[in-house]
Protein backbone atom coordinates (compact mmCIF):
# COMPACT_ATOMS: atom_id res chain seq x y z
CA UNK A 1 0.00 0.00 0.00
CA UNK A 2 2.73 2.41 0.97
CA UNK A 3 4.64 1.51 -2.10
CA UNK A 4 1.66 2.33 -4.27
CA UNK A 5 1.35 5.67 -2.54
CA UNK A 6 5.00 6.41 -3.11
CA UNK A 7 4.76 5.44 -6.75
CA UNK A 8 1.72 7.67 -7.20
CA UNK A 9 3.68 10.62 -5.97
CA UNK A 10 6.62 9.95 -8.23
CA UNK A 11 4.22 9.67 -11.12
CA UNK A 12 2.56 12.92 -10.19
CA UNK A 13 5.81 14.83 -10.08
CA UNK A 14 6.78 13.48 -13.42
CA UNK A 15 3.55 14.05 -15.29
CA UNK A 16 1.90 16.89 -13.49
CA UNK A 17 5.11 18.87 -13.01
CA UNK A 18 4.52 19.44 -9.30
CA UNK A 19 7.52 20.41 -7.19
CA UNK A 20 9.23 17.28 -6.08
CA UNK A 21 10.33 18.53 -2.64
CA UNK A 22 6.76 19.09 -1.56
CA UNK A 23 5.32 15.85 -2.83
CA UNK A 24 8.13 13.54 -1.98
CA UNK A 25 8.96 15.18 1.35
CA UNK A 26 12.55 15.55 0.38
CA UNK A 27 14.81 18.20 1.84
CA UNK A 28 15.45 21.28 -0.25
CA UNK A 29 18.85 22.82 0.06
CA UNK A 30 19.55 26.30 -1.19
CA UNK A 31 23.13 27.45 -1.10
CA UNK A 32 24.61 30.85 -1.59
CA UNK A 33 28.16 30.27 -2.65
CA UNK A 34 30.12 28.75 0.13
CA UNK A 35 28.75 30.88 2.91
CA UNK A 36 25.08 30.01 3.34
CA UNK A 37 23.07 26.85 3.22
CA UNK A 38 19.34 26.97 3.66
CA UNK A 39 17.80 23.59 4.37
CA UNK A 40 14.06 23.12 4.34
CA UNK A 41 11.97 20.05 4.98
CA UNK A 42 14.49 18.32 7.18
CA UNK A 43 13.38 15.95 9.87
CA UNK A 44 15.52 17.08 12.74
CA UNK A 45 18.99 17.88 13.84
CA UNK A 46 21.29 14.99 14.63
CA UNK A 47 24.75 16.43 15.08
CA UNK A 48 25.91 19.96 15.20
CA UNK A 49 29.33 21.29 15.87
CA UNK A 50 31.65 24.00 14.64
CA UNK A 51 32.65 21.95 11.64
CA UNK A 52 29.78 19.62 10.98
CA UNK A 53 26.02 19.65 10.66
CA UNK A 54 24.06 16.49 10.28
CA UNK A 55 20.33 16.62 9.64
CA UNK A 56 17.81 13.82 9.44
CA UNK A 57 15.99 13.51 6.16
CA UNK A 58 13.25 11.08 5.29
CA UNK A 59 15.79 8.54 4.20
CA UNK A 60 19.14 8.86 5.91
CA UNK A 61 21.04 12.03 6.73
CA UNK A 62 22.34 15.14 5.12
CA UNK A 63 25.86 15.88 6.20
CA UNK A 64 27.37 19.30 5.69
CA UNK A 65 31.02 19.83 6.50
CA UNK A 66 33.03 22.97 6.70
CA UNK A 67 34.26 25.39 9.33
CA UNK A 68 33.02 28.11 11.71
CA UNK A 69 29.40 27.04 11.52
CA UNK A 70 26.70 29.14 13.08
CA UNK A 71 23.00 28.30 12.88
CA UNK A 72 21.58 31.65 11.90
CA UNK A 73 17.99 30.54 12.25
CA UNK A 74 16.51 27.38 13.63
CA UNK A 75 12.84 26.91 12.89
CA UNK A 76 10.87 23.72 12.79
CA UNK A 77 11.68 22.26 9.35
CA UNK A 78 14.08 24.95 8.26
CA UNK A 79 17.61 25.81 9.15
CA UNK A 80 19.92 28.52 7.89
CA UNK A 81 23.54 27.63 8.25
CA UNK A 82 26.28 30.16 8.00
CA UNK A 83 29.98 29.46 7.74
CA UNK A 84 32.40 28.12 5.19
CA UNK A 85 30.84 25.09 3.57
CA UNK A 86 33.13 22.55 2.06
CA UNK A 87 30.94 19.59 1.27
CA UNK A 88 27.33 18.43 1.27
CA UNK A 89 26.80 14.73 1.43
CA UNK A 90 23.89 12.33 1.61
CA UNK A 91 24.29 9.37 3.88
CA UNK A 92 21.64 6.75 3.40
CA UNK A 93 20.28 4.60 6.21
CA UNK A 94 20.08 1.32 4.55
Amino acid at each position, binding site marked *: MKKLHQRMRTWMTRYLALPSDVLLELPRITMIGQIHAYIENHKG*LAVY*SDTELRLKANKGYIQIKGSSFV*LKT*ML*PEEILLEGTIEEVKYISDD
Partner: protein
Amino acid sequence: MEKFQGIFFTGYVTIAVKGRLPELFFQACMKEGIPAWNVKKTGTDTCQGNIKLEHISTIRKLRRQHEYRISFIRKQGYPFLWRRFLRRKEIVAAALLSVLLITFLSNIVWKVDINGVPLEIEAKVEKQLKGYGIHPGAWTFSLEPPSVIQQKLLHDVPELLWIGVKRRGTALEFQGVEKTIVQRQKVKGPRNLVAAKKGIIQKMYVSRGLPTKEVHDYVEAGDLLVSGEIGSLSLTEQPEDGEEKDKNQKPGKLVAAEGDIRARTWYETKVSVPLEAGYETLTGNQEKKYYVRVKDFYMPVWNLDNPDYKETQRENHETPIRFIKWDLPLKFVATTLSEKEPYFKKRTREEAVAFGIEQARQELQLQLGPEAEIQGEKILHESIENGKVELTLYLTAEENIVKEVPIE
Protein backbone atom coordinates in the same frame (compact mmCIF):
# COMPACT_ATOMS: atom_id res chain seq x y z
CA MET B 1 14.02 36.18 8.57
CA GLU B 2 10.58 37.76 8.94
CA LYS B 3 10.07 35.72 12.04
CA PHE B 4 12.68 37.75 13.83
CA GLN B 5 11.43 41.15 12.89
CA GLY B 6 10.73 43.48 15.74
CA ILE B 7 12.59 41.17 18.01
CA PHE B 8 14.11 44.07 19.86
CA PHE B 9 10.72 45.20 21.08
CA THR B 10 9.53 41.86 22.34
CA GLY B 11 12.88 41.04 23.89
CA TYR B 12 15.10 38.04 23.66
CA VAL B 13 17.66 36.14 25.73
CA THR B 14 20.87 34.35 24.94
CA ILE B 15 21.00 30.99 26.63
CA ALA B 16 23.97 28.71 27.13
CA VAL B 17 23.39 24.98 27.24
CA LYS B 18 25.87 22.72 28.92
CA GLY B 19 25.86 18.95 28.78
CA ARG B 20 26.50 16.06 26.43
CA LEU B 21 25.47 16.89 22.88
CA PRO B 22 24.07 20.33 23.76
CA GLU B 23 22.82 20.96 20.22
CA LEU B 24 20.12 18.39 20.81
CA PHE B 25 18.50 20.75 23.25
CA PHE B 26 17.94 23.16 20.40
CA GLN B 27 16.61 20.28 18.38
CA ALA B 28 14.08 19.70 21.16
CA CYS B 29 13.22 23.39 21.06
CA MET B 30 12.65 23.16 17.37
CA LYS B 31 10.27 20.28 17.86
CA GLU B 32 8.30 22.37 20.33
CA GLY B 33 8.08 25.08 17.72
CA ILE B 34 10.41 27.45 19.47
CA PRO B 35 12.53 29.32 16.96
CA ALA B 36 16.17 29.87 17.82
CA TRP B 37 18.81 31.88 16.05
CA ASN B 38 22.51 32.52 16.09
CA VAL B 39 23.13 29.10 17.51
CA LYS B 40 26.84 28.58 18.05
CA LYS B 41 28.82 25.77 19.46
CA THR B 42 31.30 27.27 21.85
CA GLY B 43 32.88 24.07 23.02
CA THR B 44 32.42 20.34 22.85
CA ASP B 45 29.78 20.39 25.56
CA THR B 46 28.50 23.95 25.41
CA CYS B 47 26.26 25.64 22.96
CA GLN B 48 24.59 29.01 22.97
CA GLY B 49 21.75 30.57 21.06
CA ASN B 50 19.08 33.25 21.16
CA ILE B 51 15.50 32.64 22.14
CA LYS B 52 12.48 34.91 22.32
CA LEU B 53 11.43 36.17 25.70
CA GLU B 54 7.95 34.73 25.34
CA HIS B 55 9.35 31.20 25.08
CA ILE B 56 11.27 31.22 28.32
CA SER B 57 8.59 29.39 30.28
CA THR B 58 8.54 26.58 27.71
CA ILE B 59 12.32 26.44 27.89
CA ARG B 60 12.11 25.95 31.63
CA LYS B 61 9.70 23.08 31.15
CA LEU B 62 11.99 21.51 28.57
CA ARG B 63 14.94 21.82 30.91
CA ARG B 64 13.23 19.54 33.38
CA GLN B 65 12.93 16.79 30.78
CA HIS B 66 16.58 16.90 29.79
CA GLU B 67 19.81 16.74 31.66
CA TYR B 68 21.22 20.04 30.57
CA ARG B 69 22.36 22.95 32.56
CA ILE B 70 20.95 26.08 31.07
CA SER B 71 22.06 29.53 31.99
CA PHE B 72 20.85 32.88 30.69
CA ILE B 73 23.83 34.81 29.49
CA ARG B 74 22.41 38.01 28.14
CA LYS B 75 19.03 39.66 28.22
CA GLN B 76 18.36 41.99 25.38
CA GLY B 77 15.57 44.08 24.05
CA TYR B 78 13.13 46.67 25.09
CA PRO B 79 11.40 44.87 28.01
CA PHE B 80 14.73 44.44 29.77
CA LEU B 81 15.79 48.00 29.10
CA TRP B 82 12.49 49.16 30.49
CA ARG B 83 12.85 47.04 33.59
CA ARG B 84 16.36 48.29 34.11
CA PHE B 85 15.10 51.83 33.72
CA LEU B 86 12.31 51.32 36.24
CA ARG B 87 14.77 49.92 38.75
CA ARG B 88 16.50 53.27 38.91
CA LYS B 89 14.04 55.18 41.04
CA GLU B 90 15.80 58.50 40.79
CA ILE B 91 15.82 58.47 36.98
CA VAL B 92 12.13 57.60 36.87
CA ALA B 93 11.41 60.36 39.34
CA ALA B 94 13.47 62.81 37.31
CA ALA B 95 11.69 61.85 34.11
CA LEU B 96 8.29 62.29 35.74
CA LEU B 97 9.32 65.59 37.24
CA SER B 98 10.60 66.87 33.94
CA VAL B 99 7.35 65.96 32.22
CA LEU B 100 5.49 67.76 34.98
CA LEU B 101 7.79 70.73 34.68
CA ILE B 102 7.31 70.93 30.93
CA THR B 103 3.55 70.72 31.42
CA PHE B 104 3.78 73.45 34.01
CA LEU B 105 5.88 75.67 31.76
CA SER B 106 3.63 75.01 28.76
CA ASN B 107 0.80 76.59 30.66
CA ILE B 108 2.48 79.87 31.29
CA VAL B 109 2.32 82.92 29.07
CA TRP B 110 5.87 83.65 28.04
CA LYS B 111 5.42 86.46 25.66
CA VAL B 112 2.90 89.16 24.92
CA ASP B 113 3.31 90.63 21.48
CA ILE B 114 1.47 93.70 20.35
CA ASN B 115 1.81 94.59 16.71
CA GLY B 116 0.43 97.02 14.24
CA VAL B 117 -0.15 100.01 16.50
CA PRO B 118 2.03 103.02 17.37
CA LEU B 119 4.07 102.93 20.54
CA GLU B 120 1.80 104.99 22.73
CA ILE B 121 -1.21 102.81 21.97
CA GLU B 122 0.93 99.76 22.45
CA ALA B 123 1.80 101.01 25.92
CA LYS B 124 -1.86 101.63 26.63
CA VAL B 125 -2.85 98.19 25.49
CA GLU B 126 -0.09 96.67 27.54
CA LYS B 127 -1.25 98.54 30.61
CA GLN B 128 -4.81 97.37 30.07
CA LEU B 129 -3.62 93.81 29.59
CA LYS B 130 -1.73 93.98 32.88
CA GLY B 131 -4.97 95.06 34.43
CA TYR B 132 -6.63 91.91 33.10
CA GLY B 133 -3.78 89.83 34.47
CA ILE B 134 -2.16 89.17 31.12
CA HIS B 135 1.60 89.58 31.25
CA PRO B 136 4.59 87.34 30.68
CA GLY B 137 4.62 84.81 33.48
CA ALA B 138 0.86 84.68 33.92
CA TRP B 139 -0.86 81.38 34.34
CA THR B 140 -2.87 80.52 31.25
CA PHE B 141 -5.75 79.08 33.26
CA SER B 142 -6.52 82.52 34.54
CA LEU B 143 -6.80 83.95 31.04
CA GLU B 144 -10.12 84.66 29.52
CA PRO B 145 -10.86 83.37 26.05
CA PRO B 146 -9.43 85.53 23.24
CA SER B 147 -12.82 86.79 22.17
CA VAL B 148 -13.51 88.19 25.63
CA ILE B 149 -10.07 89.82 25.82
CA GLN B 150 -10.72 91.33 22.44
CA GLN B 151 -14.08 92.76 23.51
CA LYS B 152 -12.62 94.18 26.69
CA LEU B 153 -9.69 95.78 24.91
CA LEU B 154 -11.89 97.35 22.30
CA HIS B 155 -14.03 98.74 25.05
CA ASP B 156 -11.21 100.01 27.25
CA VAL B 157 -8.88 101.39 24.60
CA PRO B 158 -11.01 103.67 22.46
CA GLU B 159 -8.17 104.35 20.02
CA LEU B 160 -8.40 100.81 18.74
CA LEU B 161 -10.52 100.10 15.73
CA TRP B 162 -9.94 96.40 15.88
CA ILE B 163 -7.63 94.06 17.70
CA GLY B 164 -6.96 90.45 16.89
CA VAL B 165 -6.06 88.19 19.78
CA LYS B 166 -4.30 84.97 19.00
CA ARG B 167 -2.71 82.40 21.20
CA ARG B 168 0.28 80.80 19.63
CA GLY B 169 1.60 78.19 22.02
CA THR B 170 2.87 80.05 25.04
CA ALA B 171 2.80 83.43 23.35
CA LEU B 172 -0.09 85.80 23.03
CA GLU B 173 -0.21 87.85 19.89
CA PHE B 174 -2.18 91.00 19.49
CA GLN B 175 -2.65 92.55 16.11
CA GLY B 176 -4.13 95.97 16.44
CA VAL B 177 -5.54 98.45 14.01
CA GLU B 178 -5.60 102.06 15.04
CA LYS B 179 -8.68 104.14 14.61
CA THR B 180 -8.02 106.96 12.25
CA ILE B 181 -10.47 109.69 12.79
CA VAL B 182 -11.92 110.46 9.44
CA GLN B 183 -14.07 113.50 8.94
CA ARG B 184 -17.56 112.37 8.27
CA GLN B 185 -18.26 112.59 4.62
CA LYS B 186 -20.79 115.21 3.95
CA VAL B 187 -22.73 115.71 0.84
CA LYS B 188 -20.42 118.28 -0.64
CA GLY B 189 -22.35 119.64 -3.53
CA PRO B 190 -25.42 121.80 -3.35
CA ARG B 191 -28.19 120.20 -1.41
CA ASN B 192 -31.59 120.69 0.07
CA LEU B 193 -32.81 119.70 3.47
CA VAL B 194 -36.02 117.75 3.53
CA ALA B 195 -38.12 116.28 6.30
CA ALA B 196 -37.33 112.69 7.23
CA LYS B 197 -40.69 112.17 8.89
CA LYS B 198 -43.89 114.03 9.47
CA GLY B 199 -44.21 116.48 12.34
CA ILE B 200 -44.79 120.00 13.49
CA ILE B 201 -41.73 122.21 13.43
CA GLN B 202 -40.84 123.49 16.88
CA LYS B 203 -37.43 125.07 16.43
CA MET B 204 -35.56 126.10 13.35
CA TYR B 205 -31.97 127.06 13.03
CA VAL B 206 -30.81 127.45 9.47
CA SER B 207 -27.16 128.33 9.05
CA ARG B 208 -27.15 128.12 5.26
CA GLY B 209 -29.81 128.01 2.66
CA LEU B 210 -33.29 129.27 2.21
CA PRO B 211 -35.90 128.06 4.69
CA THR B 212 -39.19 127.21 3.06
CA LYS B 213 -41.13 126.35 6.22
CA GLU B 214 -41.72 128.15 9.45
CA VAL B 215 -42.09 127.23 13.07
CA HIS B 216 -45.49 125.54 13.77
CA ASP B 217 -45.75 124.39 10.17
CA TYR B 218 -46.88 120.83 9.65
CA VAL B 219 -44.57 118.87 7.36
CA GLU B 220 -44.86 115.46 5.77
CA ALA B 221 -41.95 113.14 5.11
CA GLY B 222 -40.06 114.35 2.02
CA ASP B 223 -41.24 117.97 2.28
CA LEU B 224 -38.62 120.56 1.45
CA LEU B 225 -37.47 122.34 4.59
CA VAL B 226 -34.45 124.36 3.52
CA SER B 227 -33.69 124.98 -0.10
CA GLY B 228 -30.15 125.06 -1.46
CA GLU B 229 -31.19 127.31 -4.31
CA ILE B 230 -30.82 130.92 -3.45
CA GLY B 231 -31.92 133.73 -5.65
CA SER B 232 -34.26 134.18 -8.57
CA LEU B 233 -34.43 130.56 -9.50
CA SER B 234 -36.00 129.57 -6.24
CA LEU B 235 -37.97 132.76 -6.09
CA THR B 236 -40.31 131.58 -8.72
CA GLU B 237 -40.90 128.37 -6.86
CA GLN B 238 -41.29 129.63 -3.32
CA PRO B 239 -42.57 133.11 -3.61
CA GLU B 240 -43.68 133.60 0.03
CA ASP B 241 -41.01 132.32 2.43
CA GLY B 242 -37.63 132.75 0.81
CA GLU B 243 -37.95 136.38 -0.16
CA GLU B 244 -37.45 138.20 3.11
CA LYS B 245 -33.85 137.29 3.89
CA ASP B 246 -32.17 136.73 0.63
CA LYS B 247 -33.59 139.27 -1.73
CA ASN B 248 -30.27 140.71 -2.70
CA GLN B 249 -28.75 137.33 -3.65
CA LYS B 250 -27.64 136.84 -7.18
CA PRO B 251 -30.02 134.69 -9.14
CA GLY B 252 -29.47 130.99 -9.48
CA LYS B 253 -26.90 130.36 -6.79
CA LEU B 254 -26.69 126.85 -5.37
CA VAL B 255 -25.40 126.21 -1.85
CA ALA B 256 -25.22 123.25 0.49
CA ALA B 257 -28.05 123.91 2.88
CA GLU B 258 -27.29 123.40 6.54
CA GLY B 259 -29.50 123.61 9.53
CA ASP B 260 -31.08 122.05 12.55
CA ILE B 261 -34.80 121.67 12.51
CA ARG B 262 -36.54 120.09 15.43
CA ALA B 263 -40.07 118.99 15.08
CA ARG B 264 -42.69 117.35 17.21
CA THR B 265 -43.34 113.84 16.03
CA TRP B 266 -45.78 111.12 17.09
CA TYR B 267 -45.44 107.46 17.59
CA GLU B 268 -47.98 104.80 18.34
CA THR B 269 -46.74 101.76 20.19
CA LYS B 270 -48.19 98.70 21.78
CA VAL B 271 -46.90 97.33 25.07
CA SER B 272 -48.00 94.39 27.10
CA VAL B 273 -47.07 94.10 30.75
CA PRO B 274 -47.73 90.96 32.77
CA LEU B 275 -49.40 91.50 36.13
CA GLU B 276 -47.28 88.80 37.71
CA ALA B 277 -43.62 88.85 37.05
CA GLY B 278 -40.93 86.46 38.14
CA TYR B 279 -37.27 87.14 37.79
CA GLU B 280 -34.02 86.25 39.43
CA THR B 281 -31.34 88.40 40.87
CA LEU B 282 -27.86 87.55 42.04
CA THR B 283 -27.24 88.45 45.64
CA GLY B 284 -23.56 89.09 45.05
CA ASN B 285 -22.41 86.17 47.17
CA GLN B 286 -20.21 83.95 45.14
CA GLU B 287 -17.60 81.29 45.50
CA LYS B 288 -15.04 79.87 43.18
CA LYS B 289 -14.24 76.21 42.75
CA TYR B 290 -11.57 74.63 40.66
CA TYR B 291 -11.54 71.27 38.95
CA VAL B 292 -9.36 69.24 36.67
CA ARG B 293 -11.57 67.65 34.11
CA VAL B 294 -10.89 64.42 32.26
CA LYS B 295 -13.68 63.84 29.75
CA ASP B 296 -16.75 63.78 31.99
CA PHE B 297 -14.98 63.36 35.26
CA TYR B 298 -14.40 66.44 37.36
CA MET B 299 -11.69 66.13 39.95
CA PRO B 300 -11.97 68.90 42.52
CA VAL B 301 -8.70 70.67 43.13
CA TRP B 302 -9.56 73.60 45.28
CA ASN B 303 -12.51 74.55 47.47
CA LEU B 304 -14.12 71.17 48.01
CA ASP B 305 -17.28 72.02 49.93
CA ASN B 306 -20.41 73.39 48.36
CA PRO B 307 -21.69 76.72 49.58
CA ASP B 308 -25.12 76.57 51.21
CA TYR B 309 -26.96 78.75 48.73
CA LYS B 310 -30.60 78.13 48.14
CA GLU B 311 -30.26 78.51 44.43
CA THR B 312 -27.06 78.82 42.54
CA GLN B 313 -25.99 80.08 39.19
CA ARG B 314 -23.12 78.03 37.79
CA GLU B 315 -20.62 79.43 35.39
CA ASN B 316 -17.84 77.29 34.01
CA HIS B 317 -14.67 78.56 32.50
CA GLU B 318 -12.52 75.87 30.90
CA THR B 319 -8.92 76.07 29.87
CA PRO B 320 -7.17 73.09 28.28
CA ILE B 321 -3.92 72.05 29.90
CA ARG B 322 -1.19 72.09 27.32
CA PHE B 323 1.92 70.04 26.83
CA ILE B 324 4.43 71.90 24.67
CA LYS B 325 2.10 72.57 21.73
CA TRP B 326 -0.60 69.99 22.18
CA ASP B 327 -3.73 70.21 24.22
CA LEU B 328 -3.83 67.39 26.74
CA PRO B 329 -7.16 65.64 27.28
CA LEU B 330 -7.15 67.40 30.62
CA LYS B 331 -8.95 70.61 31.29
CA PHE B 332 -8.68 73.08 34.08
CA VAL B 333 -12.12 74.25 35.06
CA ALA B 334 -12.86 77.28 37.16
CA THR B 335 -16.45 77.36 38.33
CA THR B 336 -18.10 80.37 39.79
CA LEU B 337 -21.09 79.66 41.99
CA SER B 338 -23.26 82.68 42.56
CA GLU B 339 -26.19 82.85 44.88
CA LYS B 340 -29.48 83.43 43.14
CA GLU B 341 -32.61 84.87 44.59
CA PRO B 342 -35.90 84.45 42.84
CA TYR B 343 -38.35 87.30 42.92
CA PHE B 344 -42.04 87.19 42.35
CA LYS B 345 -43.85 90.38 41.96
CA LYS B 346 -47.51 91.16 41.66
CA ARG B 347 -48.42 94.43 40.10
CA THR B 348 -51.60 96.33 40.38
CA ARG B 349 -53.12 97.61 37.22
CA GLU B 350 -51.79 101.12 37.84
CA GLU B 351 -48.29 99.87 38.47
CA ALA B 352 -48.38 97.80 35.33
CA VAL B 353 -49.52 100.75 33.29
CA ALA B 354 -46.80 102.96 34.72
CA PHE B 355 -44.25 100.26 34.02
CA GLY B 356 -45.50 99.85 30.47
CA ILE B 357 -45.26 103.57 29.80
CA GLU B 358 -41.75 103.73 31.19
CA GLN B 359 -40.75 100.78 29.05
CA ALA B 360 -42.22 102.27 25.91
CA ARG B 361 -40.45 105.57 26.57
CA GLN B 362 -37.12 103.87 27.03
CA GLU B 363 -37.55 101.85 23.88
CA LEU B 364 -38.44 104.88 21.83
CA GLN B 365 -35.54 106.87 23.24
CA LEU B 366 -33.23 104.06 22.26
CA GLN B 367 -34.67 104.06 18.80
CA LEU B 368 -34.49 107.80 18.25
CA GLY B 369 -31.10 108.42 19.80
CA PRO B 370 -29.97 110.63 22.63
CA GLU B 371 -30.73 113.92 20.90
CA ALA B 372 -34.42 113.29 20.78
CA GLU B 373 -36.58 114.29 23.68
CA ILE B 374 -39.76 112.48 24.56
CA GLN B 375 -42.26 114.98 25.69
CA GLY B 376 -45.35 113.13 26.66
CA GLU B 377 -47.60 110.18 26.20
CA LYS B 378 -51.28 109.35 26.02
CA ILE B 379 -52.98 106.06 26.62
CA LEU B 380 -55.20 105.34 23.68
CA HIS B 381 -56.37 101.96 24.77
CA GLU B 382 -55.99 99.83 27.86
CA SER B 383 -57.23 96.29 28.51
CA ILE B 384 -56.43 93.23 30.57
CA GLU B 385 -56.02 89.99 28.72
CA ASN B 386 -54.66 86.69 30.04
CA GLY B 387 -53.13 88.35 33.08
CA LYS B 388 -51.46 90.99 31.00
CA VAL B 389 -52.16 94.65 30.63
CA GLU B 390 -52.24 95.56 26.97
CA LEU B 391 -51.54 99.19 26.27
CA THR B 392 -51.70 101.22 23.13
CA LEU B 393 -49.72 104.37 23.65
CA TYR B 394 -49.32 107.55 21.78
CA LEU B 395 -45.97 109.17 22.37
CA THR B 396 -44.90 112.65 21.46
CA ALA B 397 -41.25 113.44 20.86
CA GLU B 398 -39.16 116.31 19.70
CA GLU B 399 -36.33 115.46 17.36
CA ASN B 400 -34.23 116.60 14.47
CA ILE B 401 -36.01 115.63 11.28
CA VAL B 402 -33.49 116.94 8.78
CA LYS B 403 -32.44 114.77 5.89
CA GLU B 404 -29.89 115.93 3.35
CA VAL B 405 -30.75 115.56 -0.30
CA PRO B 406 -28.28 116.69 -2.99
CA ILE B 407 -29.50 118.85 -5.82
CA GLU B 408 -28.84 117.25 -9.16
